[in-house]
Structures are given as structure tokens and as C-alpha cells.
């Protein structure tokens, strides 16, 4: 199974909103704790190490792109 990057939620805004609201009122530290737990719960639900690696690679690529843009601006 490959990582799905198609839009899987019928209402994507509901999903985004649910995550945003979960962080409402939390300090940065608490938010980071919440994210850590959430990542582990979701990773286990996916239960496929290849998909997890792909997801990590995709997420990391975003960070790489961002830092390259920053360098170009400098």
C-alpha cells in the first residue's frame, strides 16, 4: 500500500478544524505533547511501516523546501 495523498475526507475542513480545536488553549509545550501522542496513535492505526516512512519523507520534504526558500531569500 502506498501513502495516499488524495483528499480522503468528505469534509476536509472538519478534519483540519478538529485538529486546530484540539490545540486551542494549550501552551506550546502542551501542544507538542498532544502532537506526539497523536502521531503515535495515528501511526499505529495506519500500521504499515512503508506508509509511515513515506509520510515522514513527505513531511520532511516540506521542511527542506521551507529552509531552501529561506536561504534563497537571504
Amino acid at each position, binding site marked *: 500500500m502506498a501513502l495516499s495523498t488524495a483528499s480522503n475526507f468528505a469534509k476536509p475542513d472538519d478534519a483540519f478544524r478538529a485538529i486546530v480545536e484540539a490545540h486551542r488553549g494549550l501552551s506550546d509545550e502542551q501542544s*507538542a*505533547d498532544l502532537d*506526539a*501522542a497523536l*502521531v*503515535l*496513535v495515528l501511526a*499505529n492505526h495506519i500500521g504499515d511501516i512503508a506508509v509511515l516512512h513515506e509520510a515522514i519523507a513527505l513531511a520532511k520534504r516540506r521542511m527542506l523546501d521551507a529552509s531552501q526558500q529561506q536561504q534563497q531569500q537571504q
Partner: protein
Amino acid sequence: MAQTKTQFGYRRHPDQDRAAAEIAEHAVVVVGAGPVGLSLAIDLAQRGQAVVLLDDADRIGEGSRAICFSKRSLEFWDRLGIGQRMVDKGVVWSVGKIFHGEQQLYQFNLLPEEGHKRPAFINLQQFYAEAYLVDRVGELPAIDLRWRNKVTGLEPRNDSVLLTIQTPDGPYRLNAQYVIACDGARSSLRQMVGAEFSGQVFEDQFLIADVKMTAAFPTERWFWFDPPFHAGRSALLHKQPDDIWRIDLQLNRFADPALEKLPENVRPRIARMLGHDKFDFEWISLYKFQCRRMNRFIHGRVIFAGDAAHQVSPFGARGANSGLEDAENLAWKLDRVLRGTSPEALLESYHTERSAAADENIRESTRSTDFMAPNSHQEARLRKAVLSLAKETEFGKRMVNGGRLSTPSVYATPLSTADGDSWRGGAQPGASMPDAPVAGPGGEPMFLTEAFIGAGTRFTLLEFGNGAAPELPEEVAAIRIGGKDGLVDSAGLAASRYDAEPGTAYLLRPDGYVAARFRHPTREGLDAALARAAGHN
């Protein structure tokens, strides 16, 4: 209790009186009489090789050091004739419990099923294991054990190695076809061959205390994250024979070793853990550790085994046990090469199989160590999430890593013959033979591992009877289950653990690993598998 002999005398050997032009020649010299060197020497001797075993000390080391010996190690020691003595003295265990704070997160059973001769683990102080091995060496005239013989020089020759050895009577030299270096983590032979030994250094410090007390704790491995008696760190409690308890406490990276080791500083910590002060110290040691291995376990005719070749963190009982697996892996191969029944290339499979096992052990123990001592705030955060999820989810419990205990590797090796038939389970080629209870022809209960020893611990065909026995290559022994005069698989466990149907056969290597398996073996198939497993391809 019989007093165990731990002090041995130096004795001058006639080799030392030889003229420089008549240096003694030996087939195998094993350097280091620790658990690995002693076990290797015994295995070689039982296979008919004469072994010179050198040790630079004249006594067995102090302190418990290694304490957990695995089922696989016990099965090896059974083949060496000393398994029962180890088990009789040792503390048998298979259950581990993991706590977080005051709460038990989960427990695991490393051998939840019946029908194995040996338990998942015994705990036994290393000095007992060494003493029993030395006793066994004393029964084998083929082993020439020389105390206070320190190798100080090593000179590779074309077909041998010239060793210079220092003794209380001065130096002498001898020539060996093969030198096996089992001289521990600080191996001087490793330095003499100029081998690199690099890896990951862990900064965290751990305190080991062996304390003597009578206590009613069960014989289980207890591991705490953030216990009330040692806030923010980890702790381990484990029982040994003689009312000795192993306690392992994680300290911070900047703790002063000299100060932390003082009994007056250790005592309050332990008292907090136990809730009382009624104990005596047997041994206190503070350590840091590294995970590393040699690039090559074979340097010409010098072959490295045990801690000399690889080191892991202590969490997971992978140090001594992996060294013993090295010994059982090397002994039969070296024996065959010395006899000329296998080419020297067979030895290369020792490096292939055991360096992959070392990588696996290093990976597992590094993961455990990183879980216990996170390297960054985010790692600590992820661990905190796992520990809290473990309270209410099964997956969280499985992610908690308080040490993953040693299991034998499954070798991806050129000695194996790939499966040609279809299997739903059983032991794949490269795996160690599963044990199972069977009954002898007269109904006497026994185990498959015992039948393997009875057949001579050589290449052995384990067959599940189906009419006439297959014709075997000359050197292959046979264990037959079912049929006329065969062993009786009364509980059906042999058949289920080997995924066997009538006609199924497993070709076992002399170290009890599976070389090949067949639904219906043919003579051609067996010949080819045997040739491959003996290193002829």
C-alpha cells in the same frame, strides 16, 4: 554448598623449554578463558580438536557481570555437558514486568508455552558459569588451559600465526594454525591486528549494585521508568542465586563516578527502592557503555569472538549470550576446516552470520538505551507519549522499550538452501532448531534438543516418518519421528513447531541451525543442501 574453585595456579609447560628453532606448533590457540573462550574450547575439544587455551590472569573475575543466560545459551551448554549444572544453580525466569511510576504498565512472558527442555532465561553470576566451564575443561584432556599466559606479540605467517606469550617464567613463543581471540572488550589482540573498533558512545551512566538480602520479590525481571524511589530515571531489579539481587540504576550524565560508587552514597538510593536498609553489598560498579563492532571478525588466521568483536549495551542480555552464539557458530566450522572436510571459505560464513547478528544486537540494544535515556527534548516527549498511551492501549504497551531480550538471530546465509516447497510455519533455513517434547521408543520422555545431542551434534536429518527412511549421505546422522522405532510425538508439538507432514525433513547444521527443509527429501536434494551448508559452493 560446595566451594567453587576460582583461583588457579600457573604451571610451566614444556612448550616454554623449546629452543627458538623448534617452536611448538598447535592447531588452535584460544585467547581468553571467559565464558566465550571456555565454551569454544570445550566445543572444539568435544569435536576432537586439541586446543591451547591461554588466559592472562590466574583467577575468575569478581563481580556478577553477565547474569542472564538465554535458552539458546543453555541449549549450547547442554551440548557441552554443563547445561544442567547451570540450570540447577541458576534462577529460572520468563516473566518481566514494566512499571511507570507506581503503576504496572504491562508484563510479558518470554516463553509462554510448555514443552521446552530449557526456560527462557536463567540468572546466574558469570563467575559461577566460568567456574563450571573450567571444571568441564578439566575433564577434557584435549584442552591445555594455561593460566598467566599473556599474549604480547602476534605475527601473521603464511599459514599460521606466531604468538609471543609472557609468563611468570618469562616469554616463550608458539605457532598456531588459528588463533581465536576471546579476550574481551579491551581485547589486546584486536589492537595487535590493528583493527578499528568504533561505534556509538553513550553518555548516560548506570550504577550496578548486587546486594545480598532475603526478599519475597518474585523471580521476575522488574523494570521501572520514573519510579518513586528514583525520580525521572530508570531502574531494574533482578534475582540471582544465593539471595543476591541485581539492581541497576540510571544516573545522570554528569554524575561523578568516584563519588557515586561510594557505598555510603549508594546505600540510601537502594534503601529508598527496597523500603528498608537490611542488605549488604556484594559488588558495586558504575559504567557507561558503547555499541560497536569490528568491521571484520576475521583477520587472516586470527578470528574474533564475543566482546572482543562486538559490544552492546547491557539492556537485553545480548552481550554474553551473543558471544556464546559466536562460539557455537565457529566451533563446528573451524573443526571441519582443520579436518579438511570443508574449505577454509566456510569460516567466512562465521563473519557473515555473526556480524549480521552483532548488527541486530546493536540495533536492538541501542533502541532500548535511547528509550531509557532520550537524546533530545522531542525524544523525551515521544517517550512520555508512549508511556502515557501504554496505560490504556495495547499498542502503547508494545512500544514501551525496557530492554528487548536476546533471541537467536535467523541467519541470512549462503549456507542455507532456500525453501523449494510450501510452508505455513516451522523453522525457516537459518533459524535455530525449535525444541519439542517427544518420547523415546521405550516411551521415555525426552526432548528434541536431547535427541540432537544423542545423534552426535553433527549434520543431522530430522525426519517425520513416512514409510522407508530416505537414503542419507554418509556423514549425516538421523533423528526419526514416527514410524517403526522412531521417536513418538505424543503431544503433536514437534509436528506443529516444524510445520511437519509425513515425509517432512529438516537438515540441521552441527550447531543446531536449520540448513534446509523438504516436504519429501531426495538424495540429490540432500547432497546439494549438505554441500552448500558445508561451504563447498
